[in-house]
C-alpha cells in the first residue's frame, strides 16, 4: 500500500488501513485506529468547485461523496453515515450514471467547495509588540513589522498594540496626532471593561456617547475601526507610528528586569478582537523579547535575583507564578479560539520568554510559535515573512476560523483529536466515551491553519462482537473543514475515506499498518500525556505499548529472544519509539520549559514526514566514495572523511569530519586541483538550503567540525552505538558520552520482553 500516494490524494494517513472489526481486536492492536489529517493539504491539480455542497438531513449533515449510493432515476442518494435517503436538489435533475457531479467521482474523495458567501470582514492582524527591547532589537523588529505591512493583503485589517510597563493600543484613524489608549500593565482587563473603555463592541454601540461608527466599515467592527484599519488606508499612519516607536521609557534599575506587561497586552488584544470581530478570521501576533514581569500572566518577578523557572521548579511546583500564569493564558486562549482568532508568538530572546506558560494561546488557536534568540536574526525575519507568505494568486497561505467536523459510520466512534485547536463541543452519537486528546466532540475549531497543519484524530471501533461481515464492507470517515479562505470567501473541504473491515486475525490488518503514521500518532499521544503527567509514567506507558505491539504482531517463539522477528510493516517502528524516548519531546533535561513547549508545539501541528524528522532526525553523508546517501543515525556514521548533514527539523547541521575540516582549513578547496573537495564542501550546503526554504519555523542552521563545540547538536541525536562504556562494535565512528542505551541494546531488551509472554 502506498501510504504517501493516499496522503497526496486525501491528506490522510491512517495507522491502520484495514480495520479490525471488533472493539477487542482493535484494542489488541495497541495502536489505536487513527488518522493524521492535513485539512488544507495543497492539491494544485484540483481547484475548488463553486457551489454549495449537498448535505444530508439536519442532524447528520454529512456531505454527498463518492461512497454514497445514488439512485439516478429516483434522484435520491443514501447517506452512508446515517443511512437516510435524501432527494437531490432540483439542479441535480440531470444526473445520470454518465453525468455525475464531481463530488461523486471516485477521484474526488477530497473536494473543496467554494461557498458563495464571503466573510464580511477581511482578515485582521493585530500586532502586539514588546518595547522593552534593546535599541537594535527594536529597530530590527520595527523593520520587520513595516515590511510585514507590505506582505499582508491590502484589504486586510491591521492594528497595533505596544507594551512595556504599560499597554498601548494605537488608534490609527486619528488624524491630528499619534494617539493611543493606554492600559495599566498590572491589570487583567475583562471584556466588558475593554468594551466600555474603548467604546467598542455590540453592547456599547448603541449607547449615547459612543463614537459614531463610520459607515464605510461593516457593522461587525462595532466602533473598532479607530483601532483596526485596512492596510491600504492606514499604512502611512501605522508606518510612522512604528518608526517613531521608542523603547519603553520607564527607567529600569540595573538589578531589575524591565517591566513587561505581556499578559495585560494580550488581554487587551483578545478583549478588543472578540468584542469587535467575533467569529471573523484574525491573528494576534505577539512579538516578545523577554518574560512578562508584571501583571497577569507574569512569568518571573522583576528582580534579577529571582531566576526564571526551570523544569525542576515546575515539577516541584516551587514557582510562584507558573500555575497562575498558565491559568491566565489558558483563559485568553479559550476566548480567542472561541471567537476564531489565532495567536502567534514570536520570541526574540536569549533567555526564556514564558512560552511554557503562553503555549496554550498558540496551541489552542492554531497559531505559530517561533523561538529565536533575537529579532535581529534571519531566523526570525524569515519565519515571520513565511507566516505571511502568499500563494500564486496572491492570497495568504492560511485559512482562518476553521471548524473541522468528523463523521463516521456507526461502527466507529471518535475518541478525540490531538492538534492545534479546541473542542467545538459538538456532541453526537459518534462521540466515544474514552478520550484521547481533545475528546467529547466530533468537531474542533482551529482559528488558523495552513497547508501543513495536521491533526491527529483517534477513533475506536464500536462493534462489541464480531458480526458477519459483508464482504467489501467498509468503514467510512468524512472530514469536513469549513474555513475562511484568505481571499475572503468561505470554503469547505470534504475528505471522505473508506477503509475495509477485516476479521481480527486477518493478515490484512498488520499488512496495512502504516508504521510511520503510527509512530507519529503514538508520539502525539505520548507528548499530549506528557503535558499532563509525569514524564516517567509516559515513558513506561510507551514501553508497555511497544512491547504489547511486538507481542501481538511479532513472530517469535515463546521465551526465545533470538527468534523474535517483526514483519516489514513493523520493522522500524521500535526504532522510532527508541528515538522518541530519547527526544527532546519527552526528555526535558537540557531544555528549558520554553524550548520544550516550542518543540511539542511543532510536533502537534506538522505533517507525518516532518514529525518523523523531529522524532528521528535524518542524517545524510557526503563523501568521496559515492553520491550522498542517508546513513544510520549512529555514532558510527561520524567518520573523519565525510560531511554529514543532520536534519532534526529544528536544526540543520552540517558536520565536517576531522580530515575534511583539516583540508578545508588548509585551504585545499581553494586550489584548482582540489576542486572535488570544493564540490564536496558545497553540496551539503546546497541541500541544506533546500531544506531551509520549505520549513516553518525556519530551522537553526549550524555548520561545525568534528570535535567542535557545536558538534554536540549532532552527537546528542546519534545512537550511541559507541559510547565510553561499550566497545566499538563496528569500528570507526566516535564515542558518544552518554549513559543512554543504544538501539541494539534497546531492541534486544525489547525482544526479550516481547517473547516473555504476558507482560
Amino acid at each position, binding site marked *: 500500500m502506498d501510504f504517501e500516494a493516499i496522503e497526496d490524494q486525501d491528506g490522510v494517513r491512517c495507522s491502520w488501513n484495514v480495520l479490525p472489526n471488533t472493539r477487542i481486536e482493535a484494542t489488541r492492536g495497541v495502536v489505536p485506529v487513527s488518522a493524521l489529517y492535513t485539512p488544507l493539504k495543497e492539491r494544485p491539480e484540483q481547484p475548488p468547485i463553486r457551489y454549495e455542497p449537498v448535505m444530508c438531513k439536519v442532524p447528520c449533515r454529512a456531505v454527498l461523496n463518492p461512497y454514497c449510493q445514488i439512485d439516478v432515476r429516483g434522484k435520491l442518494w443514501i447517506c452512508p453515515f446515517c443511512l437516510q435517503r435524501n432527494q437531490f436538489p432540483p439542479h441535480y435533475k440531470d444526473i445520470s450514471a454518465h453525468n455525475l457531479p464531481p463530488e461523486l467521482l471516485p477521484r474526488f474523495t477530497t473536494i473543496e467547495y467554494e461557498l458563495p458567501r464571503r466573510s464580511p470582514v477581511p482578515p485582521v492582524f493585530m500586532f502586539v509588540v514588546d518595547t522593552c527591547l534593546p535599541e537594535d532589537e527594536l529597530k530590527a523588529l520595527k523593520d520587520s513589522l513595516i515590511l510585514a505591512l507590505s506582505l499582508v493583503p491590502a484589504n486586510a485589517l491591521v492594528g497595533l498594540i505596544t507594551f512595556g510597563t504599560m499597554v498601548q493600543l494605537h488608534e490609527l484613524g486619528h488624524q*491630528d496626532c499619534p494617539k493611543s489608549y493606554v492600559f495599566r500593565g498590572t491589570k487583567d482587563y475583562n471584556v466588558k471593561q475593554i468594551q466600555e473603555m474603548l467604546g467598542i463592541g455590540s453592547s456599547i454601540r448603541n449607547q449615547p456617547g459612543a463614537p459614531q461608527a463610520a459607515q464605510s466599515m461593516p457593522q461587525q467592527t462595532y466602533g473598532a475601526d479607530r483601532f483596526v484599519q485596512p492596510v491600504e488606508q492606514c499604512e502611512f499612519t501605522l508606518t510612522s507610528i512604528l518608526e517613531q516607536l521608542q523603547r519603553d521609557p520607564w527607567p529600569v534599575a540595573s538589578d531589575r528586569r524591565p517591566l513587561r506587561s505581556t499578559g495585560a497586552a494580550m488581554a487587551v488584544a483578545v478583549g478588543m478582537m472578540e468584542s469587535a470581530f467575533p467569529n471573523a478570521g484574525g491573528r494576534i501576533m505577539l512579538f516578545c523579547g523577554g518574560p512578562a514581569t508584571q501583571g497577569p500572566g507574569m512569568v518571573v518577578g522583576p528582580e534579577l535575583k529571582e531566576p526564571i523557572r526551570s523544569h525542576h521548579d515546575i515539577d516541584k511546583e516551587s514557582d510562584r507564578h507558573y500555575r497562575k500564569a498558565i491559568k491566565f493564558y489558558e483563559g485568553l486562549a479559550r476566548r480567542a479560539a472561541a471567537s476564531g482568532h489565532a495567536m502567534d508568538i514570536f520570541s526574540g530572546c536569549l533567555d526564556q520568554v514564558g512560552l511554557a506558560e503562553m503555549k496554550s494561546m498558540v496551541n489552542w488557536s492554531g497559531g505559530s510559535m517561533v523561538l529565536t534568540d533575537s529579532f535581529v536574526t534571519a531566523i526570525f525575519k524569515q519565519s515571520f515573512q513565511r507566516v505571511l507568505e502568499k500563494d500564486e494568486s496572491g492570497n495568504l497561505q492560511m485559512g482562518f476560523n476553521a471548524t473541522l467536523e468528523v463523521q463516521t459510520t456507526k461502527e466507529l466512534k471518535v475518541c478525540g483529536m490531538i492538534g492545534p485547536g479546541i473542542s467545538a463541543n459538538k456532541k453526537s452519537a459518534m462521540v466515544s466515551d474514552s478520550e484521547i486528546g481533545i475528546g467529547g466532540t466530533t468537531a474542533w475549531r482551529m482559528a488558523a491553519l495552513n497547508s501543513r497543519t495536521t491533526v491527529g484524530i483517534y477513533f475506536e471501533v464500536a462493534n462489541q462482537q464480531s458480526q458477519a461481515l459483508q464482504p467489501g464492507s467498509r468503514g467510512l470517515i468524512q472530514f469536513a473543514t469549513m474555513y475562511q479562505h484568505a481571499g475572503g470567501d468561505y470554503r469547505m473541504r470534504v475528505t471522505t475515506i473508506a477503509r475495509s473491515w477485516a476479521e481480527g486475525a486477518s493478515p490484512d490488518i498488520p499488512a496495512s499498518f502504516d508504521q510511520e503514521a503510527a509512530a507519529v500518532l503514538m508520539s502525539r499521544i505520548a507528548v499530549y500525556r506528557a503535558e499532563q503527567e509525569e514524564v516517567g509514567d509516559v515513558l513506561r506507558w510507551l514501553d508497555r505499548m511497544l512491547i504489547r505491539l511486538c507481542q501481538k504482531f511479532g513472530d517469535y517463539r515463546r521465551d526465545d529472544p533470538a527468534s523474535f522477528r517483526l514483519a516489514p510493516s513493523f520493522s522500524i517502528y521500535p526504532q522510532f519509539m527508541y528515538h522518541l524516548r530519547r527526544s527532546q519531546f519527552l526528555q526535558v533535561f537540557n531544555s528549558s520549559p520554553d524550548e520544550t513547549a516550542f518543540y511539542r508545539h511543532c510536533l502537534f501541528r506538522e505533517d507525518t514526514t516532518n514529525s518523523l524528522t523531529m522524532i528521528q532526525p535524518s542524517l545524510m553523508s557526503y563523501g568521496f566514495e559515492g553520491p550522498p546517501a542517508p546513513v544510520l543515525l549512529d555514532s558510527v556514521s561520524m567518520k573523519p572523511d565525510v560531511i554529514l548533514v543532520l536534519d532534526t527539523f529544528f536544526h540543520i547541521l552540517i558536520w565536517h569530519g576531522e580530515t575534511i575540516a583539516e583540508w578545508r582549513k588548509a585551504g585545499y578547496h581553494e586550489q584548482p586541483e582540489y576542486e572535488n573537495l570544493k564540490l564536496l564542501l558545497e553540496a551539503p550546503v546546497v541541500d541544506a538550503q533546500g531544506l531551509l526554504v520549505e520549513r516553518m519555523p525556519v530551522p537553526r542552521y549550524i555548520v561545525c567540525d568534528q570535535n567542535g563545540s557545536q558538534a554536540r547538536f549532532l552527537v546528542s541525536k546519534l545512537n550511541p552505538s559507541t559510547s565510553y562504556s561499550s566497545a566499538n562494535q563496528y569500528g570507526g565512528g566516535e564515542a558518544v558520552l552518554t549513559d543512554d542505551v543504544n538501539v541494539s541494546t534497546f531492541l534486544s531488551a525489547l525482544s526479550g520482553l516481547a517473547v516473555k509472554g504476558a507482560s
Partner: protein
Amino acid sequence: MGAPPPPPGSAPGAQRPPMHPGQRGPPPPPPPPPPSGGPRPPPGFPMQGASPQYMPAPQPHHPQQFQQPSQQQPQHPGAQGSMMRPPQPPTASPQNRGLPPMPPQQMSQPQQQHLPPQPQQNPHDGMAALSNQMGGMSIGHPPPQPGMASPPPTSQQKLRARRVYPTANSPTAAAPPAGGAMPGVSGYPPAAGTQAPGYPGASATGYAPSAGPQTFVPGAQAPAPVSAAGAGYARGPGVPGSPPGVAQQQQQQAQPAPYEPPRPRIDPTQMPTPISVHTHDQEIHNEKPYSTALKTNIPMASTNFTAIDDGNCNPRFVRLTMYSVPHTAELLRASHMPLGMVVQPLADLAPTEEPVKLIDFGEEGPIRCLRCKTYINPYMVFINGGKHFVCNICRHENTVPDDYFCNLDMAGRRLDCEMRPELRNGTVEFVATKDFIAREPVPASFVFAIDVTWNAVQNGMVSQAAAAIKDALYGGPGLPPGARVAIITYDRSAHFYSLSPLLDQAQMMVVPDIHDMFVPINDGFDADPIESRHVIEGLLDALPTMFAQNRTAEPVLGAVVQAAHEALRSRGGKLLLFQTALPTFGPGSLKQRDDPKLHNTDKERTLYEPQDSFYHDWAVKLVEEGISCNLYTFPSAYMDLATLSQLSTVTSGELYSYPGFDAGRDGKRFAADLRADVQRTYGTNAVLRIRTSDGLRVDEHYGNLYMRNHVDVELAGVSSDTAIGALLQYDEKLDEKQDVYFQAALLYTTSDGQRRIRVHNLAVPCTTLIGSMFRNSEIDASMNLIAKMAVAEAQTTPLKAIRDKLSDRCVQILTAYRRNCASGSSPGQLILPEAYKLSPLYTLSLLKSPALRGGADVPIDQRTFHMYLLRQLSVPKSVRYFYPTVAPLHTLGESEGVVDESTGIVSLPELSRASYAMLNPAGAYFLSGDGSLVFWLGRQVPPQFLQEALGASSLEQVDVKQHALPELDTALSRKIRTIADQLVGNRAGFAYVQIIRQGMDQAEVQFASKLIEDRNNDNMTYVDYVCAVHRQIQVEVRPKGPAEPKWSYN
C-alpha cells in the same frame, strides 16, 4: 409687578397705603405722625430736629420708594420729615414709609408716582427729609464728617479719629473728605430728577418680575405704615412677612434717587465714601515715598505708593489691622476691633520700589534665634560688644557665630549694619539650606487639564482654553522662568500628551481606565515650553478640531486629579483644571444635590459643605506633594462648587467661575485671567510661619490653606496674590514700653526650582490707650480679615447669624469708640472714628455680597464662589471688591485717561459714588467691581460722545452685543480704552465690556445691583444702614433706661 408703571399722575392718588401704587403715593402725604416718636429714642434721635432722618433711613420705607431714585426721594422726604422728629424706633416714625410697603408689587407704579410727586412734594419733602435726615445726621446719624469734631471727645487723637456729622446739612464738612462730598451733593439733585423719568420706566418693566421677596425692611414697614411713623428697622416687629417682596423690588431700583434731592441734611453725599478717603490718602502719598520706619500711618491699600523698606516690611506684604497694639486682651476686647494681619508674602512690588534682597548664608543657613527659631532681623539687639544678640521675639540671648561677629558702634549698632540687608530691611530672602529641603526642589510644572466633553466643545471653552494657554505661554513674558508645561484633556477618559521636544508632534495617550488612574508617560509628560514650543503649539492648535466631534459627556475630574498627583509626585507644580460640569462619572463622582427648597433656610449651609470627602482627601494629598490646583469652571448648571472648590481652597489654588460661559462674551476675560494666573510670581511647596512677640500668638489662620498643626501654614502653591489672614490672641500682658514684633517667614520653592525663605518683619508700638488704637487702626485689613472670618463660619453657622454678627461687630466697634473716645458728644450725633469711618459702608457691602446676602435668588455655586473670593482676596483687591469703581467718562479732562509715562499709571477721572442717583443721565460711566466692566450710557448722553466713543449716532444704534470697545481713532475712544484696561487690572487689551443703556437694556438690573449704596441685594441703602447703625449705637450707649427694646435690625 402687575401694573407697570402708570403714569406719574396716578401716584399721588395712590397715597393710600392699600394701594399698591400707594406706596409711593403715601409718602407724599408724608408728614403723618411725627408724634409717637418721642418716647423711644430719646438718646440720639430726639435731640435734634433733624434726627428723625435717620429713622426713616433705617427703615425700609425709603428704600422702597427709592427704587426710583430721584422721584421717590421727594416723597420720602416729606414723609420723613414728618416722621423725623419722632424718631422713635419702635413706632413707625416713617409712617410714610409704612405706606409704601403696602403694595407688594407695584414697582412700576412707584416710579411713576414718584415722578409726579417729586416736583410737587419736593419742597416739603425736601424739607421733611432734610429735617428727618438732619435729625438723623445731627443726632447720630450718618456721615460723620471728618472735620466736624463737634462732639470733640478728648484728645487730639480723638479729634483726628472721629468724625461727626453735623446735624445741619452743613455742606461744609470739617474733614476734607466730607467737605468734598458735600458740594457734590448739591449738584446732583437736579440730575437725579432728570434721571428719574427714564429710569423708572425701565425699571418697571425689567424689574417687576425679578423683584424677589425681600424680607426684612420692607415688610416691617408695610404693616407699620399706618401705625407709627417712627418704627425703625429694628422693630421689624410684625413686619417681616408679607409685603416685602414688592416693596423691595421697587426699592432696589429706586433707592438711590429718592435720597439725594430731597434731604439736604442726610444727603448721602455727605456720607463717608471710599472715594474721598482714597483720594485723600493718595494725595498724601503722591509726592513722598513712605518710609516704613514710621511704623504707623501706613498708606491705604488702595493707594499707589512707594515704600522704602527701613526695617519694617512694605505694607504690601503684611498689613496689620491696627498699628498700635493694645497691651492687654481687655483693652482689645473693649474696642471690639479685630487684631490680626493679612500677609501677602509674595506680593508684587511697585516698579519704583527696591526688589527684595537675596542673602546667601552658605552652608550654615541664616542666623536664627536658638530658642524660637526667629530669623535674624533688624530688631535683634546686639549686646556684649557684639558677641551676643537678643531675640526680639522671645528675648532669648544668643551667641553670635564667629564668622558673623562684628563690632558695635557707640550706639550699640553693628558697624556692618549698612552692609547687611538682613539687619536693615524688613523684608529679605534667604537661600534655604539642606535643612529646609525635604526633597530636591525642581522647577514647577504647570499642568493644564482641559475638559473636552461635548458641552465644553459646544460652548467654545475648548478652543478658548487652547488659545488662551497658547497666548499665556507664548504671547508675552510666558511662564515664570524654568517652569514646565504639561497638557491633559479629559472626557470619560483622560488623555495625556507626550510633549518631548524630540517629537515632531505631540503623542496622545488615552487612559480609559479612570477607576484606576495612572500616568502613561514617563518622559515628556511635561516639557520646557520653549524647547517644545513646536510640539505644544501644534497640539494646542489641533485641540479644538480633535474634539470637535466629541459626543461624550461626564468629564472625569477626579481621575484627572489623581493622575496629576501621580505625575507631579515629589516635584510640585500647578494644576489648572478647566471643568464645565458636575463630575458624575468615575472616581469622585458627585450627585446633583442642589435643592431650591433649601435656599434661604438654615439648611442652606449644608450645600456649602462638601458632599463627600474625596476632593478634600485628594487635595490634602496634593498639598503633600506641593501641587496647587487652580479650578476654572464654566458651569451651565449646578456643578457643586462647594465640593469641587476644595481642590482650590485646600491647595491654596485659585477658583474661577464663568457661569453660562459664552466664548464671545467671556472669552477675553477668561484669557486674561488665565494669563495673569500663569504669568504671575509663583512658588510651590510653601510653609508660612508667623511669629509674634511673646504674649501674643496667632489664634487662627484664614484663607485658602492647609494646616497640619497649629503653627505652620502649608501652601501647596503661593503666588503674588496669595493672602493669608491671621487673627491674634493674647497669652499675657504686653510690655507697653516695647514695640510689638511680628515675623512672617515663608519657606518656598520658586518656580525655577530654588528653595528660598522670605522673611517679613514688623515692629509696631504697643499702647495702653484705646484712642490710639482707633487712631492707628487700618480699615482695609480689618474688613478683609473680618470678611475672611465671616466666610469661615459659613459651613457651621446660618448666613443670617453671620450677617447679624457682622452688623453687631460694626455697631460694637463704633459704640466702643463712642463710649471711650467721644463720650462727651451729643447722643444724637453719629460719631465715627476717622480710621473706621468706612466700616458701615464696608459692612453693608459685605452683607450685600453674594457670599452672605439673604434671599433665595443667589445660586449656590455663586455663593460658594464668592465665599471663596472673600477667603482668598488680598487687601487691595478686597477694597475694590467692597466698593465698585464708577468712573465718569463724559467729563474726561485733558490729563485723564492718559498713561503716565514714568509710572505707568493711568490717571482716572474723579470717581462717582456707587449709587444710581449719582449717575448723570447725560453721562456715561464705567463700573468695575469683580473684574468685569460695565459701560453704562445715560439716557441723555450726547450723540457726539456716542459717536466718538462707540461710533454710533444714537443710543438706539449702539450695539450692545459687542464685547470690546471699538478701536476708533478718536482721543475719547483711546482714553476710554486706556481707562478700561486700567480698571480691569492693567490687562492691556483684554477688557471685556458690557454695554448697558439706561432704561433700555434688561441687564441694567444687574448693573443696579452692583451699586452698593443703593437698596438692593436684600439689604438697605447706605444711608439707611448708617441710620440703623446709629440708632443701635444710641441704644447701646444710652444709660440703661426703662426696658428699652433690644435692637435687632435685619
